[in-house]
Each structure stands twice: as C-alpha cells, then as structure tokens.
C-alpha cells in the first residue's frame, strides 16, 4: 500500500472530523470511510474530543472531579491525598495537566534554600577556619626551638624533597634549592648557617612569570633572605599564558627563589648521607604509637 499524500491526508481528516462532530464513534467512522488504518484515523482525529455518548463511567469519576477542583484552588498533591484518601499517583494522573499553583513553585523554594545556605556558611566558614588555624597553631607551638642536630635533619629532608639531585644521566654534586614558599627558604638558610656555610657563599636567582611584578618580587626575596642585591643573579623569566588557570597570580605571587651554594660538593654529599640516615633511623624498631609531646594540649582532635 502506498502512503497517503498530504492532500489525501487533509481530505481524510476533513471527512473524519465531520463524522466525529456528527456524533459517530471511531468504529462507525471506519465503516463509513472504508479501508483506513487505526493509526491514520487516530492521526486524523487528533485534538477532536469524542462525543459524550461514547464515554463510559469510571470507578472514581467523582473523586477525580473533586481532585481537579481542589488542585484549581491551589492545593498540593499531599493535601489532596489527605482530603480524598486516594493514591498520590492517581492524583498526579488526574491533575498533572492543570497549571502549577503559584505558591509551590520549586525555583522559589530552591532560591530560599540557597539563601539560607549562604547565610549559614557566611557565618560558619570563618568560625571553622579559625578552629582549623587554632589546631595548627597549637601543634606549631609544641615544636619550640630546634637543636642544631634537628635543624640538620629537617634541612636534609627538605633538600631531598626540593633540592637539585644527582641523576644517573647527570652527575652534578652541587647544592641548589628552589622554592616558592618563603618560610621554607628561610628555614633552608638556617640549615645552611647550621651546616657552617657563610652567607657570602650563596647566590640567588628569582624565577618568575614575565607578567608578574618582578621588581616587587626581588624586594620581597631580598627581605626574606637579607642578602645583598649583588648576590641576586639575572632573573629567569617564564612566559606568561594569558589564558592561564594558575591560581597563584595575585599580589601574593612572588615566583620561586633558587639558592645556589658555591663550592658545595662536600655539603651535597653530606646532605645525601643525612637524608638517607633519617629514613634508616626512622625505620629502626622503636616505640610505636602516638607521640605524647606533639599532641596539642588545648584543641580538639575531632571534627572541626
């Protein structure tokens, strides 16, 4: 069978709707029109209400009408269920085509909820930040001053982490340490003092993005290191990507500082020895368990 053309479909629709309005059922229309499929006929009749006499009664027609009435008055599904004692899914089936009552708009609820959330956190965030900072500060206080030996241990470990190291493919025994954290740089300088390196044996290099304030960064690191300006080598500039996603681009960005120690192969070898001795010493069988002196006295260890 060939499909109907648009014109034939329009003719079919015209005749079918005329019969429908004359009060015929679908079955009667099919008998009158001759061979036509269910699908084509239902397409043709779409949007045309059936005549009243073809309606059959349903078990809850009265409840359905009352539910629609209540919905028009602005009740939500749960309130309708409460009044009529029918299933919520039935209520949904009966009233879902009616417009949503204005009071129950979900975007309004969401807006109010997010506003409450914002208010809660704008008060709570600083409180928690302060508690976190207090926990760290209490732990920091417990450390106190360090012996020379402790400084050597910590400095050697820091060097193992952040310093330049010998590789099988690049044999250089030279002490070079680079970092962006001014506190770590200060501590490394204390370590060098403790290891007996005169400050005059140090050379510094600023490594920074060309988009940053280079002069301010040099002033910053001169302040951190208390070095002479002539100990600073030529600045190493990194190219800036204008579409960068880096977060450290604000006024707090000072680049990295590289510290080179002159004539340092002896020190380099000592640092290697200290660092591996720290791991060996830490792994040596000893008392295991919580270390009492390090636990903060006046802060909670639990959730913050």
């Amino acid at each position, binding site marked *: 069978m060939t499909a109907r053309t648009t014109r034939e479909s329009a003719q079919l629709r015209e005749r079918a709707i005329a019969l429908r309005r004359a009060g015929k059922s679908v079955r009667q229309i099919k008998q009158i029109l001759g061979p036509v499929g269910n699908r084509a006929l239902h397409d043709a009749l779409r949007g045309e209400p059936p005549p009243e006499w073809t309606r059959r009664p349903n078990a809850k027609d009265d409840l359905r009408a009352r539910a629609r009435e209540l919905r028009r008055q602005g009740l939500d599904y749960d309130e309708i269920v409460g009044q009529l004692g029918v299933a919520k899914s039935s209520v949904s089936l009966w009233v879902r085509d009616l417009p949503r009552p204005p009071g129950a708009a979900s975007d309004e609820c969401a807006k109010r909820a997010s506003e409450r959330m914002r208010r809660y956190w704008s008060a709570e965030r600083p409180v928690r930040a302060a508690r976190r900072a207090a926990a760290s500060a209490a732990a920091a206080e417990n450390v106190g001053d360090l012996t020379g030996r402790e*400084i050597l241990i910590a400095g050697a470990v820091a060097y193992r982490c952040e310093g330049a190291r010998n590789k099988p493919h690049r044999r250089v025994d030279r002490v070079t340490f680079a970092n962006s954290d001014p506190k770590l740089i200060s501590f490394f300088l*204390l370590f060098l003092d403790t290891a007996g390196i005169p400050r005059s044996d140090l050379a510094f290099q600023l490594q920074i993005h060309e988009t940053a304030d280079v002069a301010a960064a040099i002033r910053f690191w001169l302040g951190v290191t208390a070095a002479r300006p002539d100990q600073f080598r030529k600045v190493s500039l990194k190219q800036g990507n204008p579409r960068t996603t880096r977060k450290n681009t604000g006024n707090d960005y000072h680049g990295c500082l590289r510290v080179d120690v002159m004539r340092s192969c002896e020190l380099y070898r000592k640092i290697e020895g200290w660092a591996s001795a720290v791991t060996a010493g830490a792994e040596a069988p000893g008392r295991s368990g919580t270390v009492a002196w390090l636990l903060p006295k006046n802060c909670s260890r639990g959730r913050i």
Partner: protein
Amino acid sequence: MSDATLNDALKGEPPPPDRPGLGYAESRARITEGVRRYWAAERPARETARAAVSAAAAAQLGELTDREIMIAGAIAYWCEGAKSKPYRIDEQVRFMNSDPVLIRLFLAFLDRAGVSRQRLRYSVHIHESADVEAATRYWASVTGAASEQFIRPVIKHHTPRTSRSFRNAGYHGCLRVSVTKSSALYREISGWAQGVMAAKRRDPK
C-alpha cells in the same frame, strides 16, 4: 705571530712530514689510552671517596628520637604532600613521590604518629608506556602493603617524543599514599611543619 694568524696562512697546505719518533695519529691514540687508563682507576676511587663523605655524615646521625622523626616527617610532608589552599580547602593527608626513601620516611613517620597502616591507601601514578604491574609489585615491596590496599592506578599519557630521561628500567612511576579520616592529622602536620620552619636554633649548651 699568533696561532690564529699562522693557521690562516697555512690553510690548505699539506701537513708536515712526520718527525722521527711517534707520528701524530700514534701520539693521539697513546694520549687517549693514557686518559682512559687513568680514569678507569680514578673513577671508582673518587666514587668511594664521595660515598665515604655521605656515609660519615650518615653515621654522625645514628638513631633518631621520636621528636626528630616527627620533625623530619612534617617537613617532608610540607615539601611533597597535598596542601589545603585558600581556593580549595582540602585537609586530607596525601603524600606522593617517586623517591622510595621519602615514601619510607613518611610511612615511618605515620607509624610514630599512631596512624594504623590499615588507614592507608596506595595508588601508583605511571605512564601508560611503562609496566604497571611491575611498578605495583615494586611499590608493594617498598611499602610492605597488601595488594588490596592499592587502589586503581592513575595512568598518564605517553608522548612518544618525550625528552624525559626516566624512561629506563629504573622507572617505577610515583606512589601516592592517602590516609583516610585524616583532617585532624593534616592540621597537626601542617602545624608541626610551620613550627619547624619558624623555629630558631636553640643555643648549644
């Protein structure tokens, strides 16, 4: 007359006939051989001397007290561990490194801090071109951990024309050690590290 002027003037001239004794090629070969023989003997001697300096420094430290272990671990964490940032508050203890010495130090530090090994999760981060199973076995032997404590490895994309010099057999990728339920520990570690970095040297008695 300078060498350079002489060089210019004699450009294109055939080399002079060999003088009596050794020829040019012969003396070059003997020099090369002499240098090779010298370094074959000298290189191991110098390596030994270098290693002796490291060993003497190591022997100088000896055993570590609990306090020293905590100081070392906190500083190592501050250098290599995950840190909470103002734009990303995240206080889980996570330590990642390719250096087995630092990984072992950190594990010993956690032992002393009273963290049970059961709370640790390991994950290998490695390039797709490397042998993931072999790397996992390697890190299992470094940490002494059971295989079920290793969570899914993170595989990095391999660039065929890479200039990385880590492509050889000694490449095991990085190991990440995460501690579950660790925000309180994180705050302590960060406090200890701040304390160490801000510390002054106690006057030697």
